[in-house]
């Protein structure tokens, strides 16, 4: 094994600097997925893990932001039921915003609109954790395939093929029932 040419005496300083730069983004991401109350714990746990595993960070494999998002994503998985409940609430809320009560809109049309969003949530709730993470990173965080690949530690090609499958499942879920 090659001798290391670098020693980092102030890991806490580095991770603290990463906190200054990325904590707000991590907090926003966590809030979107599990709400503001749990988000604080997610941020705290993310940077605690980052500090503990600092020696394992390799900048050649991706930037620190992707690494931190990957840790946060893993932490968020502990709260997947909370996330599912929030998704269902959001489905009902979006229905009300996007399709406000319109006296000219037939009852059947508004019911169909609500059901479409609820079916999407049903599909997302049943996705494996890996796929739900990927979907959220793409659809809510606007990450590219390569960035998602860095966050999740999978090849970009796998991101694209899984996303294709997820799109199909979403389409299938809204044409049934």
């Amino acid at each position, binding site marked *: 094994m090659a001798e290391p040419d670098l020693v980092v005496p102030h890991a806490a300083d580095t991770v603290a600097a990463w906190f200054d730069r990325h904590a707000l983004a991590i907090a*926003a991401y966590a809030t979107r997925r599990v709400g503001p109350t749990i988000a604080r714990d997610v941020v705290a746990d993310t940077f605690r893990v980052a500090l503990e595993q600092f020696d394992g960070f390799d900048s050649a494999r991706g930037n620190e932001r992707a690494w931190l998002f990957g840790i946060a994503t893993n932490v968020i998985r502990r709260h997947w039921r909370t996330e599912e409940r929030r998704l269902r609430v959001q489905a009902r809320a979006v229905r009300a915003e996007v399709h406000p009560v319109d006296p000219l809109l037939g009852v059947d049309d508004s019911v169909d609109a609500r059901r479409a969003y609820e079916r999407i949530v049903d599909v997302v709730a049943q996705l494996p954790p890996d796929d739900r993470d990927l979907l959220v990173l793409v659809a809510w965080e606007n990450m590219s395939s390569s960035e998602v690949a860095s966050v999740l530690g999978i090849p970009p*090609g796998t991101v694209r093929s899984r996303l294709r499958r997820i799109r*199909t499942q979403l389409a299938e879920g809204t044409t049934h029932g």
Partner: protein
Amino acid sequence: MDEMTMFAELRPIESTMTETELAGLRAELFPSAARLARPDEPGELIDLAGRRITDQRDRRRARVAVVAAAIAAVGLGGVWLAIDRDADTATVGPAQQPDDSSSVVEPAPAAVDPYELPRFAFAEPGWTMTYASETSYGRGRAVVFLSDDGFDGPWVDISVSPADAVGSLPEVDFGAISAHVSEFADGSLVYWTEPGGRLLEAYGWQVDAATVAGLFESTTLTDGAVTVGNLPDGASLANREIADAVGRYGSYQFTHTDGRTLDINLSGGGHRALYGRVGGEQRETLSLGGEEWSMLDYADQGLTGRHRADVLRGFWTWEFDGEPFASQDAFVDTIAGIRTVDEATWEAALPDSVVGQSEQADTVAELLNGVPIPDGFDVAALTDGTTNDRYQFIAHVSGAVACAWLEQWFTGEQTEDVNLQAGAAAALATSHDWPMLIEIADQGGWSEVLWQHADAVNGGEGVLTGAGPVAPTRDLVNSALGCEI
């Protein structure tokens, strides 16, 4: 509105932690660590003695960890491990002197071959490539143009699909065939099982499912290649080079000496690829040098300084995503200065960690030294003209060899040829000693995944999945290792 857009609408807009709350949390986690002078300028680190860490070597030391045996698992089996890296990397310099006027931007000149991944260089000095991956998937696909407009008009892309892609999509009877269908605003996805039992996927860009299904009536799959026998009036079949380009993808990361990062991704397929990147998002459009750029400012998501731009240039969609930039104008200035260059200029600027076209043959020979190869394996095909960092290139080479042995193993299983299976299993068992896999074992998850497959065909418990260890299948190895068998 497609389902992805509907899900995107469910994105919450709740307030997140305040600055005060974050400051309080920071104080708990890092009671003695100094603060960044200006968090939006990553180069401005201050150590505990109050000194600014501005020297580039110090900045790298602050970011690159010590060589260690600890492995931190992140996400889906991804493995991060710090290794010793040569800190001296070449800088991607400008292919030509930058214009002195930043107010006039010329569109990048087209690549010599419009279906090869473009090669490019920055006009702005200081950028270094830190990652490169060029992949190609869906070999043997067929591309049918339904008009004289090529990729600018309606077209259909038919390729072999994983068996589980269908899910429970509704099956539609089209008379001559039945197929599973998903239709959306800009086209359709149609899945059909050909007589040999393989699932084919057809993506009809601006084509309805019935028209796509009509093509399937004369579609055959022979030795992994899709062929469409009867074409509608006015339709034409793209040649192999153009069809293969549809599955080509380039992904690169660059870092500037001042800490800015820029991802550049290239996707082929004309408007379909741009749709895949931008979709139904509401974006600002910037007209620049005769091009239409789709802009995204991440400040709305709390990511101040991060910007993204997508632009269609002929066959290729270019995606630029970088941070932190002082403004959108600063971001545009950087990416507008990126010019296409020839292969020689591109290769000359590659860092030592990246394998370019001219180095591929020698690198393949080095990597395959002592590695068992199946009879008939096409070593020359590994030299495919792509640019990849060494990790990705090793994954490409080792994956191709492993996929060939796995195909032999599955064939032996299906034909009950015990000797054929045993030979493949024995060859794969040696993968634990392949120097290339040992070299990258601590850099990512690739070696571990390949070894799981090698062990699985040698009496092991199976390949690890979310559902636990499972016996390998063709679809599983295609998904996990990128095989196309």
